[in-house]
C-alpha cells in the first residue's frame, strides 16, 4: 500500500561562511608604522580585505574582481568606500542581535570608517613591512577529494539577457545501499552568475518526472516533493557566494538511500553574454549513521498574502507554539521581491522575548541560511513568531509590476512568499513517547489548519501525519476536507482512497481512486490502490487489470508484480500467477507476499 504524504516543500540548505579564509592577518593597528593618522592599505585596509572580502574577491570565486593586492583595491577604492558605507558589502542582511550567528560577515563601524578615511586620504599603499601575509586559501574541493563527485549531465545555457532564471539540476545518486553523508560541497557552475543554490532531497523520484528527458533539468523557483512515509527533511544544504562546505555535527549525518535524487535548485542572473552553467556536487560519506534527528519546521502564511497595489506596509505574521523542547540550530527566512522588513522572535514560557533574526532591508539576491553560533534552547511552550512586512508600492524599486498590481502568494518570482524554516533538534524527550518530530509536525499541521481552514496542503499534511500514527479515522476525516477543497487533485483523491482501503472501506475508496486516475491516467499509486480496493471486494479480474496497468507504469515494482500474481492465483490462473511471483522475486528476493504465495502455489499445484 502506498501512502504518499505531501510534505510541503522544504528547502534544504547549508550556509557557512568564511572558514576557508584563514585568518592570517589580524588587524595590525596595534603596531603602527609611519604616520599613524595616515590610513594605509598595507597596515589598515589589507587585514579587512583579507578577512571579510577575499573569500569571494579572488580568482575563481563569485566576485567580479579580486581584492588581494594594493593595486586590486586601489582600482576599486571609491567603490569599496561606497558599498561598505551603505553596508551593501560584504553581503550580510541581519541586524546585530544578542543571539550570535556563526561566521557573521559584518564590518564594524570602525572598519567602515577606516576604509572611508583611506580613500579620502588618497588610498595610499603604505610601508611594505606593514602588509600581512596573504590568506591561505584551499584550492579545489575544500574538504579534500570527495568520496563521490557528480556533475550535471546537461549544462544550462544562460541567455545573455532577460530576467533572473531559476533552474533545477537533478543528480541521481549511484549507490546500492543506504549511505550517510557528513558534508556536500556544491560547485554551482560559474560562481559569478549563480546567486544561490539549494539542495533538496527527493526520495520519491517525483522531480525526474518533471524533466523533458532524463538529465535535462527543469525550470522553476520552488519544488514540491511528495514523501511516502514520515521522513521529514532535516538538513539545510545551501550555497551562496563565499560558502564553504558545512560539515554536519557528529551524529547528524544525512541519509541517502538507493534511488534518492538530489535536486540542485539554482538562482541565476544573466551576465550580458551567454554563460554555460554546469554544476557539480562533491559528497563526503561517513561510516557513522545519524543518532540525532533534526527537523526542518516550515512556518508559512502564504494564504494571507493578498497585497493591494500601492500598499507600502503589508504585514503578515504567524505564531506557532512548540509542543516539545528543541534546540534551534539554524534559520532561513524567505520572501520574494516585495519583502521589506523580516523578523522572527521567540517568546519563552517565562515571558522572555528573544530576537531570532531581524532583516530590516530584505534582499532576495542575498538570501541565506543563518546558523547560530550556539544552539538556542527553546523549551516546550515557546511561541515562535514571524512578522514580515511587504512593500507593493512604486517606491519599492524591485516591485515586479510597474505600475504595481495585486500580488498573492505563489511559487513564481512575481508571486510573493512568507516562509520561515527553522532547523530544530528535539531535546529532553522520552523516546518511549514516540518520535518527537511527529509531535512537532502534527502540532504544526494542526496550527496551519486552524489558521488557514481552506488550506488544502495543511489538511493533507495533517491527514498524512495522522495516518503515519495509524489514526485512520482522523486521517480519513482530514483527507475528506482536503478533497472537498480540491476535488480535482489526484494526490488528494488517491490518498483518501488509500486510507479508506487501509480502513477496510474499499467500496467507498473506488470513486476517489477513479477520480485520481481521471486526472492522472498514468498515476501508478492510484492503479495500485484501486487494485487493492477491488481485490478486497473479491473482484480479482478488476484487481488483476489494475495491477497489470500499475506494473506497466513502473515495471520494476515488486509489490505490483506480487499482487498481480495473487489476483491471478485467486482466479485459478496458476501458471500466470507463478510467472509474476517469480518476476517479483527477481526484483526483490525478499518480497514477502511473492515468497509466501509462491510456496503456497507450488503446494497447490503439486496437490492437483
Amino acid at each position: 500500500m502506498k501512502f504518499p504524504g505531501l510534505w510541503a516543500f522544504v528547502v534544504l540548505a547549508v550556509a557557512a561562511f568564511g572558514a576557508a579564509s584563514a585568518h592570517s592577518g589580524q588587524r595590525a593597528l596595534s603596531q603602527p608604522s609611519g604616520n599613524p593618522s595616515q590610513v594605509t592599505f598595507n597596515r589598515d585596509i589589507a587585514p579587512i580585505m583579507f578577512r571579510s572580502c577575499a573569500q569571494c574577491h579572488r580568482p575563481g570565486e563569485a566576485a567580479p574582481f579580486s581584492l588581494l593586492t594594493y593595486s586590486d583595491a586601489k582600482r576599486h577604492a571609491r567603490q569599496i568606500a561606497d558599498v561598505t558605507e551603505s553596508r551593501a558589502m560584504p553581503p550580510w542582511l541581519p541586524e546585530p542581535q544578542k543571539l550570535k550567528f556563526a561566521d557573521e560577515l559584518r564590518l564594524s563601524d570602525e572598519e567602515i570608517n577606516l576604509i572611508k578615511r583611506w580613500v579620502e586620504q588618497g588610498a595610499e599603499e603604505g610601508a611594505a613591512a606593514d602588509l600581512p601575509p596573504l590568506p591561505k586559501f584551499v584550492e579545489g574541493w575544500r574538504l579534500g577529494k570527495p568520496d563521490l563527485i557528480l556533475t550535471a549531465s546537461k549544462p544550462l545555457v544562460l541567455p545573455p539577457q532577460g530576467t533572473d532564471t531559476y533552474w533545477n539540476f537533478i543528480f541521481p545518486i549511484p549507490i546500492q545501499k543506504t549511505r550517510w553523508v557528513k558534508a556536500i560541497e556544491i560547485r554551482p557552475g560559474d560562481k559569478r552568475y549563480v546567486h544561490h543554490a539549494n539542495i533538496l532531497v527527493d526520495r520519491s523520484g517525483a522531480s525526474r518526472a518533471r524533466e523533458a528527458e532524463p538529465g535535462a533539468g527543469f525550470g522553476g523557483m520552488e519544488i514540491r516533493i511528495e514523501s511516502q512515509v514520515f521522513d521529514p527533511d532535516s538538513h539545510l544544504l545551501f550555497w551562496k557566494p563565499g560558502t564553504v562546505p558545512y560539515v554536519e555535527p557528529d551524529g547528524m549525518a544525512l541519509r541517502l538511500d538507493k534511488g534518492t535524487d538530489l535536486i540542485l535548485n539554482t538562482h541565476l542572473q544573466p551576465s550580458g553574454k551567454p554563460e554555460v552553467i554546469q554544476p557539480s556536487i562533491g559528497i563526503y560519506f561517513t561510516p557513522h549513521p545519524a543518532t540525532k534527528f533534526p527537523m526542518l519546521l516550515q512556518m508559512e502564511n502564504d494564504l494571507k498574502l493578498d497585497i493591494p497595489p500601492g500598499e507600502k506596509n503589508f504585514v503578515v505574521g504567524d505564531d506557532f507554539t512548540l509542543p516539545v523542547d528543541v534546540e534551534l540550530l539554524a534559520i532561513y527566512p524567505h520572501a520574494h521581491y516585495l519583502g521589506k522588513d523580516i523578523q522572527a522572535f521567540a517568546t519563552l514560557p517565562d515571558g522572555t522575548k528573544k530576537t531570532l533574526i531581524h532583516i530590516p532591508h530584505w534582499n532576495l539576491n542575498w538570501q541565506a541560511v543563518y546558523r547560530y553560533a550556539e544552539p538556542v534552547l527553546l523549551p516546550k511552550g515557546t511561541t515562535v513568531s514571524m512578522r514580515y512586512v511587504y512593500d507593493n508600492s512604486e517606491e519599492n524599486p524591485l516591485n515586479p509590476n510597474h505600475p504595481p498590481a495585486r500580488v498573492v502568494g505563489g511559487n513564481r518570482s512575481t508571486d510573493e512568499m512568507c516562509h520561515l524554516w527553522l532547523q530544530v533538534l528535539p531535546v529532553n524527550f522520552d523516546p518511549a513517547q514516540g518520535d518527537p518530530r511527529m509531535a512537532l509536525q502534527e502540532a504544526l499541521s494542526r496550527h496551519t489548519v486552524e489558521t488557514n481552514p481552506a488550506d488544502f496542503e495543511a489538511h493533507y499534511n495533517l491527514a498524512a501525519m495522522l495516518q503515519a500514527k495509524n489514526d485512520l479515522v482522523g486521517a480519513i476525516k482530514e483527507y475528506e476536507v482536503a478533497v472537498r477543497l480540491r476535488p480535482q487533485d489526484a494526490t488528494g483523491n488517491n490518498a483518501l482512497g488509500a486510507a479508506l482501503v487501509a480502513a477496510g472501506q474499499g467500496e467507498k475508496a473506488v470513486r476517489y481512486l477513479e477520480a485520481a486516475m481521471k486526472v492522472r491516467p498514468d498515476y501508478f499509486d492510484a492503479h495500485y490502490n484501486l487494485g487493492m480496493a477491488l481485490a478486497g471486494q473479491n473482484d480479482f479480474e478488476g484487481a488483476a487489470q489494475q495491477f497489470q496497468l500499475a506494473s506497466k507504469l513502473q515495471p520494476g515494482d515488486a509489490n505490483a508484480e506480487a499482487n498481480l500474481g495473487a489476483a491471478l492465483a485467486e482466479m485459478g490462473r496458476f501458471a500466470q500467477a507463478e510467472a509474476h511471483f517469480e518476476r517479483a522475486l527477481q526484483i526483490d528476493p525478499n518480497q514477502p507476499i511473492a515468497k509466501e504465495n509462491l510456496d503456497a502455489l507450488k503446494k497447490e499445484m503439486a496437490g492437483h
Partner: protein
Amino acid sequence: MGFWGRGMRCGLRWSFLLLLTAAVAVWGQTALDLDGHAANPLAGHSDKAVVLIFLRRDCPVSGRYAPVIQQISKQYAGSANFWLVDPDKRDSAQDLRSYLADYNYHLPALRDPDHALARLSHVQITPEVAVFNRNRQLVYDGRIDNWYVDLTRARPAPTTHELEDALRAVSDGKSVTPAEVRGVGCYISDLE
C-alpha cells in the same frame, strides 16, 4: 585644464573642435583605436549625433548592459554613431577585442588610457554614456536608464530611458532634460 570644463557644453563650434583635437594630440592625451592609432570620435563632419559608451571590463554592470547597448545602437544607427570607450589603461587592444567578441558587440571601440574622452564627456561611472549633438556639443551624460538601483539591486526592467530620450530629443532638435543623471556601476576615477 579649464578648457575641458563644463563650459564646453554650450556653444562649442566644430571649427573649435579641430583646435581641441590638436591640443589633445600635443599633450599626448588621446584615445586610441584597436590598432593603436590616435582616434577622435568627435572629429569630422556628420549629420549624426555621437554617443560614447564607457565600460570597464571588470565591471559586472557594464557586462549586463551589453545586449541593451547593442539594441539601442542598432535602433538608432540612422541618427547616431556609437563608440565603446574603455578608460582602463591596463587593458591592451587584445583584451578589449576579446571582450567585444565575448559580449557579441558589433560596435567600434576605443581605448582611453588617459581619460581624455572621459573628461570631455563628464562621465564618472561605467556604464555611462555621453551624447554629442551634430555640432559636437555635449547634450547628455550619465546613465543609460534606471535599471540598477544600486550595486546589488536591479529593477526587473528599467522604468526610465535617459539615453533613448536624449537621442530622440537630439533628432527632434530639442534640448535634453535632465542633461545629466549619474549612473550605478564602477568609478572611472578609481582607475587613475
